[in-house]
């Protein structure tokens, strides 16, 4: 590798990494937290079989899973202004990622809720608890533990999905890389570099996941 390319990599590394720390990670964390809230609501509504709302949830999941994330981003950022709704790029991205990943996570949460033995609900009734008390204190915590690996999976996927926000002008890592590449024309080196930074982020998350799983199992495994 010649020295010029090496110098470009060294100069760009901190810039891209900072875009990752300042934009990609906050974008992923915020989107994930909102997605988690959405997914719990949507999964619980279906599990509790709340009429009307349940159909609405199925409709939401159907629409979101059936259309590309890119289309959803374009609609919110480029489409909505024509009906008078103008969102800045970052909130628009959070909104799209949360709604998109929320649909997938809702299905994981629903499966995890259904995996909680029915006897847990009955035992709760028999000690005098109400449905929502049992849901909050007994069923959801157990479902959360079951769903933890697939929720971690969603978070890792979310980190990489944020790269799509580059298409709506959010200056996350890919956009930063594109800007630098526009000056120096080193696509191979620069995209290898940004790929490596994503890999670093996801490696840390994978460690966190296995740490979290151990922690949850130590807390009296649910099996």
């Amino acid at each position: 590798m010649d020295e010029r390319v090496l110098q470009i990599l060294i100069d760009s590394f901190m810039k891209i990494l900072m875009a990752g720390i300042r934009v990609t990670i906050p974008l992923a964390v915020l989107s994930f937290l909102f997605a988690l809230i959405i997914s719990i609501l949507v999964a619980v509504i279906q599990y509790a079989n709340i009429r009307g709302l349940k159909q609405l949830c199925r409709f939401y999941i159907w629409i979101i899973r059936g259309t590309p994330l890119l289309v959803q981003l374009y609609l919110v950022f480029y489409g909505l202004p024509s009906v008078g709704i103008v969102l800045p790029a970052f909130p628009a991205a959070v909104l799209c990622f949360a709604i998109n990943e929320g649909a997938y996570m809702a299905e994981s949460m629903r499966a995890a809720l259904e995996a909680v033995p029915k006897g847990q609900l009955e035992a709760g009734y028999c000690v005098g608890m109400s449905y929502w008390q049992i849901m909050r204190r007994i069923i959801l915590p157990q479902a959360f533990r079951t769903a933890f690996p697939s929720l971690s999976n969603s978070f890792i996927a979310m980190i990489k999905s944020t790269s799509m926000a580059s298409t709506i002008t959010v200056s996350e890592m890919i956009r930063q890389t594109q800007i630098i590449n526009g000056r120096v024309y080193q696509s191979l080196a620069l995209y290898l570099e940004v790929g490596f930074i994503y890999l670093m982020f996801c490696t840390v998350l994978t460690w966190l996941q296995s740490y979290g799983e151990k922690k949850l199992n130590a807390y009296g495994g649910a099996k």
Partner: protein
Amino acid sequence: MIDIRNVTKSFDDFGALKGVSLQVEKGDVVAILGPSGSGKTTLLRCINFLEIADGGTMVFDGETFDMHSISKKDISRIRRKTAFVFQNYNLFLNKTVLQNVTEGLIIARKVNKEEAEKKAVAALEKVGMADRLDSFPSQLSGGQQQRVAIARALATDPEIIYFDEPTSALDPELIGEVLSVMRDLANEGMTMLVVTHEMNFARNVSNKVIFMENGQVIETSDSKSFFENPKEERTKLFIQTIQSGRE
């Protein structure tokens, strides 16, 4: 204390309960016996509204309820005076032994934490599980889990405890520890309604026996005469069968 008349329940076309009546007085230990599929468990589940019966009336502490159209409010009012012990224990898997027992006190009955824990420890001492307060259910044997489940039932000071085949899921060598806890309760005057296959328990601990088959009560009598002097042909056959099985 409890008077149940004419309970019916069908699952699709299958008539699980075809007009069952039973009475439990304060201090009674009633064993419900019968072959598998006779409706014993369904009856118990209908009595605590885990299944809603198709028909029947219940008098509980002098109040009369229609078992089909009973309101949620009345169900939870009755449940607060009763407790249920399941065949599969159904301990809360994400809670410790202590939390399993305090949950119904703190959350459902708004007892303060300190008092709830005191009561819970007392109940756990009674079943010999007070040395495992911080264990999770997955760390206990079946017999230990069932004893915790009994403590969970006891802690709420119920007027009656329903037992649904409490020893049927246990390894043979663990059955004794659970039965001896139940025997102690009976001796202390706890009112109990017990679906069981344990003939020794029915004969020696319970004072009344109800024999069911095909969703109907075949015979109700005190336990001594049930085993020594059964009235119905079907009951005689049942007792003969279990006795020859033992030999």
